[in-house]
């Protein structure tokens, strides 16, 4: 089942307790995934920078701890079409004419918990993220979902298997930018 971190904070009314639960999350493949959940996710939630969804296994409610299988942190983002991009392409992308921008969504972080690695699949998290975005898309628009990732074959293969397509590289940050459409053509 899915816990929005926001609901977790509201129900417990105890930031320290939630923080302690999040601190039990382990991700040896990418320390940044772990650090974000442990150190930043609550602050990002409070500042409305992102929304984090925890994939949790149902256990005995009397158990002291929750079983967090994985998580995904989602946000809004803006795509700007560069000034040098051809007029016709700009028109085909249907960017806002004045600002040259397109409203998009972002998967900012996504990870599985090492402790329960076999109990879930990263694609489960992507599917849930896409359904959350789809709901937003129906209500107030947005064209694409963006994910930025490092140039690591396993990570690239994962996003490509989940229908994301490579668009460009941010060389300064050494991140590849992959997109997936929300609107049907």
């Amino acid at each position, binding site marked *: *089942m*899915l*816990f*929005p971190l926001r*609901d*977790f904070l509201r*129900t*417990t009314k105890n930031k320290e307790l939630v923080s302690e639960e999040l601190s039990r999350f382990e991700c040896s493949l*990418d320390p*940044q*995934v772990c*650090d*974000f959940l442990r150190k*930043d996710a609550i602050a*990002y939630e409070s500042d409305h920078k*992102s929304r984090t969804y925890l994939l*949790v296994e149902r256990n005995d*409610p009397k158990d002291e701890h*929750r079983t967090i299988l994985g998580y995904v942190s989602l*946000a809004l*983002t*803006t*795509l*700007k079409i*560069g000034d*040098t*991009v*051809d007029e016709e*392409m700009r028109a*085909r*992308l249907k960017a806002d004419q004045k600002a040259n*921008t397109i409203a*998009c969504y*972002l*998967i*900012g*972080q996504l990870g599985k918990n090492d402790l329960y690695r076999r109990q879930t699949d990263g694609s489960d998290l992507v*599917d849930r993220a*896409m*359904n*959350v975005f*789809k*709901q937003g898309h129906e209500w107030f628009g947005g*064209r*694409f979902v*963006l*994910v*930025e*990732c490092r140039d690591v074959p396993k990570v690239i293969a994962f996003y490509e298997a989940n*229908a994301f*397509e490579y*668009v*460009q590289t*941010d060389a300064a*940050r050494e*991140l590849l930018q992959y*997109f997936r*459409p929300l609107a*049907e*053509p």
Partner: protein
Amino acid sequence: MATSSFGRTVEIKDDKAAARLIKVAESHKPIKKIDISKEIERGRSFLKECYSR
């Protein structure tokens, strides 16, 4: 994924990237349907069971 991705404006730098993005826009990638509201509601009920004692 990268924490630095939050709060940034991403710029499509050139025609090559724009052409790739047009290809993405014109492709059809069905989304596996999950009743997300139901799943969140289940999570909410479970949270109440766990912490409303």
